[in-house]
Every structure is written in structure tokens, then in C-alpha cells.
């Protein structure tokens, strides 16, 4: 949404790095190939939970959809990475997403290691704390069952907030105070009085999501 070409370039690069790091971290946690739905869900969690690690979210805003988070720009970037041979797409097909009444691409993705590894190695040096956050998040996320992956965020404190209607903007930091990031608030509220590590908060929060999905 920004006109400045320099910003656009930075954003595009950040998205590429984010996808590669998510796929890499998921693979490290044993989730490979990764489903498109799970990837968008994890991208959302990475945004809302980044402040737990004192990191800024990459996107503090998205359009709420009934069937869960979906970032059109992120999907475009994945497509592009597929075209460049950096990411491999497996079994792509399209299904009608009845909740949102639209066609949704369903596919699994994995990194083409020989192409992606040098870039990822550089990333891990330059953005060490971010890489650690993504690794921890993916590890916590991998504890979810295959069935729950891709369907958990519908119970997320920010995503499920009923004050934002479907097809409206969820903002958790772009133009509103960080107080509106209820997911981060929930993660920070665990074990009051105890000095938990940020990674522990991620595990507790993802576990909490799993409980909510399991028990409605």
C-alpha cells in the first residue's frame, strides 16, 4: 500500500525472507511440506506474537476472512518463489472455500535446499533474534495435530475478536495502540508473577489455542 519504491522493495524482500524462514523453521520442526493454509496461519501468528520477543510485526494489519488468515501479497511471493525454483509446490489444486465463497488454492510447499540454504544462512546471521523467534514459533506450532494446523487461528484472541466483522480490517499495531494486540496481551498474561522466557510464552499460547479449538 505504499508508494515509495524503496519501501515497496524492502517490503517485497521482507516477505521473501519471511516465507523462506517460515518454511525453514517448519522443516526444522518436522513439518514439511507445509500446507498453504498452515503457512498463512503461521505468518499471522508470527505477526501477532512478534512483540512477545520485542520484535515489530511485519504486517500489523490484515483483512479478516471467515476461513482464517490469508495474505494475498504473501501468496504472490510464494508463487514467485515457486517460479524461481526456490520453493517447490506439491499437489496444487483449487477448492471452493465455502465460508468465504471463493476459490482457494490448496498446495504444499517445501524449500529447494540447494538454492535456499545460502540465503537462509546469511539471514540467520543478520537477523538472529528474528530467526530464533520464528524457530520457536514453528516448533510450538508443530505440536498441533495435522488436523488443527491451518484451523487454529480462528480461536486466536485477536483474530476471533468479534468487534471486527468479517471482510473488515484487523489492526493490531499499524494505526492503533499495541494494546489492541490481544494475542500478545494473552501470551504476556500467562503465569503472572513468574519470569517466563518469551519462547515459553509462545508454547503456552499455542497450547492455549489448541485447547480452545479442542473444547470450543
Amino acid at each position, binding site marked *: 500500500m505504499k508508494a515509495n519504491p524503496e519501501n515497496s522493495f524492502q517490503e517485497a524482500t521482507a516477505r521473501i525472507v519471511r516465507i523462506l524462514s517460515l518454511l525453514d523453521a517448519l522443516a526444522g520442526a518436522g513439518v514439511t511440506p507445509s500446507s498453504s493454509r498452515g503457512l498463512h496461519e503461521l505468518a499471522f501468528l508470527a505477526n501477532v506474537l512478534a512483540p512477545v520477543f520485542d520484535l515489530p510485526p511485519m504486517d500489523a494489519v490484515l483483512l479478516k476472512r471467515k476461513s482464517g488468515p490469508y495474505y494475498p501479497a504473501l501468496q504472490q511471493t510464494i508463487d514467485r518463489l515457486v517460479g524461481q525454483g526456490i520453493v517447490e509446490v506439491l499437489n496444487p489444486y483449487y477448492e471452493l472455500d465455502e465460508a468465504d465463497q471463493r476459490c482457494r488454492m490448496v498446495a504444499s510447499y517445501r524449500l529447494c535446499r540447494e538454492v535456499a540454504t545460502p540465503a537462509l544462512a546469511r539471514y540467520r546471521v543478520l537477523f538472529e533474534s528474528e530467526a530464533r523467534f520464528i524457530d520457536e514459533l514453528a516448533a510450538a506450532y508443530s505440536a498441533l495435530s495435522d488436523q488443527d494446523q491451518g484451523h487454529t487461528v480462528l480461536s486466536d484472541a485477536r483474530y476471533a475478536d*468479534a468487534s471486527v466483522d468479517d*471482510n473488515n480490517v484487523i489492526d493490531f499495531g499499524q494505526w492503533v495502540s499495541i494494546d489492541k494486540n490481544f494475542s500478545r496481551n494473552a501470551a504476556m498474561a500467562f503465569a503472572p508473577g513468574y519470569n517466563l522466557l518469551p519462547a515459553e510464552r509462545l508454547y503456552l499460547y499455542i497450547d492455549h489455542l489448541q485447547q480452545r479449538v479442542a473444547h470450543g
Partner: protein
Amino acid sequence: MVYFPILKELEIRDYGLYPGEQRDGRFGIKFNAGLTMIIGANGLGKTTLMTLVFRMVAGTYDLNLPSEIGTANLDAQELNPIARRQFADRVNDGAQNAYATLKFDVGSVEFIVERNLVNLSLHSLSVGSQVRSVNEKAYHDAILEASGFGVYADWLLILRTLVFFFEDRRALVWDPGAQRQLLRCLFLSPERAQEWTQKERSILELDSRMRNLQAAVRKEQKIRAKSVKRLSNESEVRAALDAAEKSKEHLDTRYDELAVFVESDDEDRLKHRLNVMRAQNEHDRSIREFERARLFAIEAHLPQVDASMRFLFTRLMSDNTCLACGSSGVNAKRKALESAIEQHRCLVCDSNLPYRDETIIDIGDKRIAELRSEVESTHVYLQQQTSLFEEINARYKANSQEFTECSAERSYLQDTIRNLINQLPQDERKALEQQDKLQGIEDLVTDLRTQLNKERAQFAESLKSDLETIQSSAEVIKQQFKVASMGFLFEDSGLSWSPNRRTVGQAGGMEPVEYPAFVVELSGSDFVGLQQRSSPSQVSESQREFIDLAFRMALIEVASPEHASTLAVDAPESSLDAVFVDKAAQVLGGFAKSAHGNRLILTSNLGASELVPQLLMEVAPIGQRLEPLVDLFSAGVPTRAMIESKVSYDKYWDQLKKKVNGESES
């Protein structure tokens, strides 16, 4: 839970405008469950009759409703003597012996109200079969007890904005002030609803006091500057003070302007951010649809090729983008691929392929063309919306930046002015004394501003829980609205819960609070997907009327579920496009036929539109279709037009009767 009035019976005696069918001065209407249709011609008193019914329920108090409703205006005010004589002034005898009696229920309590039509004063009052003292206060108390509203002004608000739909009706759904006040009194407990009003009012009073005082300070500053000028010698200090005063004055004006700009720009950029994100979503949807169609064809031609490669070809043929190198607009390559598929050649090496007994999607078909056109149009739309958003966001940033700078500069200048005054010679004691006094007022303004901030913060906090309470009904309101609006309109439509950020009061530089609000969303031939329509000018006149009516029906249904209500609409056909008639009749008929016993009261001119016969046919079986009619031609005083055009009016009557009774017109 609140209860709306359910009208049952009206009797008017000895009022010149309605002598009655027997011409004995008695005119009555039974408001049975379902439809009551008051039919007349211009000048026969349809609107007067509707107003009279309203007045019988509202009594001698009313609200002063400006173009946008705010809390400060929501006081029940006694009608002035002229307004109280509104019915008396319409007849020769001043309605000296005229009375009207209205029987209606509120919840399970029956009211029988009798008023004289000279000045609308109560003549008798019975509540739940018990005779009550004849004064408006007793009537108000009984109404509040039966209806569940906390203050009489709220009762008047729902009568004026929800139950009665007069010709000068306000577009409720597009009036954020009216909306939030209605949501407040319909969905909060009477105590919470009152607390909201009191807190908001206190802030507005404080805000007004602070701004008045601030204006007074500015005026005094100017006077002081003049007196200092008289006393002091021409000096560098004098010149600097003069310049600083002028700059400060200019900055004060600019500061006030910018506060308004920043608030309205913020609202605008929120709306346009949403538009961009929706446009991105729609564009992505259209690309995926197109890809899907393409992938079928590619899979059929390249069954052995891996998924990534097939996807690459699919994308190239969908939006002319090469995912391998990132180039866009590769039209020639796309056409070559299309041709290869059509001619059954390999997409990679162009060799002829053996015939395969499979159904291959014909990529040249109409659907493909539609999908391609959709991809292009959503792309254009996305670009337009992005550019609009960028423009508005840039404006917001510039104004916001200037506002911050202006604020800092004002403080700096204020200090400079004080310093300069302190440098003036001692014999300017008078000016200095004045300065001391002024300083006292300035301190008071600062205190008031602090108090205002504190009260605003407390109000914002209490509003959060009110917002949640109201929001718990939002889903049902949206569903009810959708049912009604889809019945009325051809377009896709819906309500979206979209809390409205607004600063309470006019003093700038304060954090806005979030008020409950819905916005209307509608599809349209020139738009991609559902679009927010934030003002009535963004829809047609027919749509406007019925969207608003749908909103009222939804609020009535949800605020008082399982209970009957009255909806009284004056001239609903006034802006009705002929093609809407069937739909309008069905939805209005549905309200009238509700199992709860709703009352739908409409007025209409004879022959004005097809709505009258359609609605009569909708609500009653053949043979009983004329029963809902209240015929002002026979019960009212004939106008000159009626006398001179009797033949024409008789013809319209005849046509109406034949039509509703299913007889063909000859």
C-alpha cells in the same frame, strides 16, 4: 428488553377534518394485527392523521432533532403553545369540542389515552384498566414502566426515528449519531443507557466551558497586547512581542483547523485502507479463479510435468506474469501457449501431441474470457483504490505532522510572549496586573483541559463494556437486516459492524472514543464486491428508503424479540421505482403478517403506485383484501380537486377494487 407501542384503536370525535363516513363527527380506525392502509388524496389529511396518532402516543413533549443527533440535544422538551395547537389550527372551529382517544399496548399493559385537540392536553388516562391522574408526568412514568426505557426522551427517540417513518424521515442507517443513540437505548439497561448520556453530556458541557473560556482568553490577550502597546515605548521588545502575538493568533486558528482536518482524514484513511485490502482480496480471488480454469487445461496437456512447472505455465496464462523471471505483460507468450493448447501441441517443444481421449477444457470459451476480464478489472480497481489511499494517507500524514509542529510552536510562542512581557518596563504595572489576571484564566483553561481529558478517558473506558453489550446483538441485527434488505433490493447487501471513532466535543488534540455503529455494504454494477456506502448519496433514492426501512425493521425485531410492534410509514411509495414494488410489497407484507401481531400502518394516495394493490394482495386472501383500507375519501372532507375530478377518482377506486379482487379490468 424494551417494548414498542402496539396500536389498537383510534377514535376521533368532532374534529372538522374527519367527519366520518356517517358524517356524525365520529371517525374511528381499528388497527388490527397486520396492515392498515390509509388511502386518500392530497389535502385529505393523511399525514395529519399519522401525525395525530404519533402525538397521541408521544404526548405534549418532543425532541429537538438536528441534522445529526448528539447527546446534548436529547432532552424531552414541552411543545410550545403554537405546536400544541397544530391540530386546532387546521380546522375552522379551532377544534373546540374535538377529542381523540387512542388505545394501545406497551408490552402487556394497555393504555387508553384521551386528549383534546385544542392543545393536546390529556383528558383521561387509563393504564392497565386503572384510571390514572390526568397529567403528562403520570403518563410518562407509566410509559417508562411498561416500555423498559429509562427516560422519556429515549421513548420519544424510538417513536421519532424507529416506529414512525414520516415523509421528512432521516436516513437513520447513515446517521452515526442517531444510530449510536438508538443502539444505546435499545440494547443497554436503562441505568447504563442513562449513565452513558450523563457522562457524555458532562464532557460536552466541560468541553463547551473550556472552549468558551479559551476564546475569552484569546480575546483578552489581544486587548492586553493593545494596552501594552500604548504604554510601552517603541523598542525591540515591543516589536518582538507584537510579532509573537500575531504569530500566536495565526497559530491558534491553524491549530483548530488542523484538529478538524486530522480527525476527518483519519476517518477517510481508515475507509480507504479497507477498500484497498478488499480490492487486493478481490483481485487475488479473480486470479485464483482464472488459474484454476487454466490449470485444468495445462494438466491435461502436461500430465507428466511436475507441479511447479505446471503452476508456472498456469500463472503465465492467467495474469501474463512470468513467475520465473518476474516479468509481467508477457502477452505474446501467453497467446502462443493458448494457441498450442488449442492446436494440441506440446507447450514446451511445440511438437504435435497424440490424441488423448480426455475432456480438455476449452480455454477459448466464454467463461475464460469473463475470468480474464475480471482479472483485468479487479487489477484496475486495485490500482485506483491504492492511488486514492496513498493520496489520503499522505494528506493525513502531512496534516498530522503540521498539527504536532503547530502544537509545539504554540507552546514555544506562549513562553516567548511571557518572557517578552516580563522584559517590559516596571511602570507598565497595569499591563502586568492584567497579565496576572489573564494567567489565572489560562491556568483555569489548563485545569479544565486536564479534567476534560480525565472524563473522556473514563467515558472511553465505560464505553468499552457498553460496546460489548451492544455488539452481542450485532450478529442477529445483521442477519435480520440481510433478510429484509435482500427482500427489498436486487443487489447483494449487508451490514457490517464498524465502531465509529469520534472525539467527544470539539476541543482538538484529544483521543477519539469508539462508538457502536453499523455501516451498509452494497454491491453495484460499477464496483467490485461489496462496498461500504457511508453516505446516502452513494445509493439510489429507492435503495436509500428501503435500506433504511430494513435497518429499522431489524432493530425492532432484535430489540423486542417475540413481541409485536408498530411501524407507521407515511407515503412509502414516494420514491419507489416500479420494479421495486413486488419486492417492497413482499417484505412489508412479511412484517405485517408476523406471528407476533405486528401493526403496519401506511398512508398512500389513491393510484399513486402499484404498491397499494400489491400489498393488499400480499397480506389478505381474496375477498378480504379491502378490509385493511381506511378510506379518507368517504370519512374526510372532500377537497375541491376531489369534487371536480370525481370521475377520475372513482375510476381509480374501481381499478383498485378490481385489481385486488382478481377481476380483469375492461
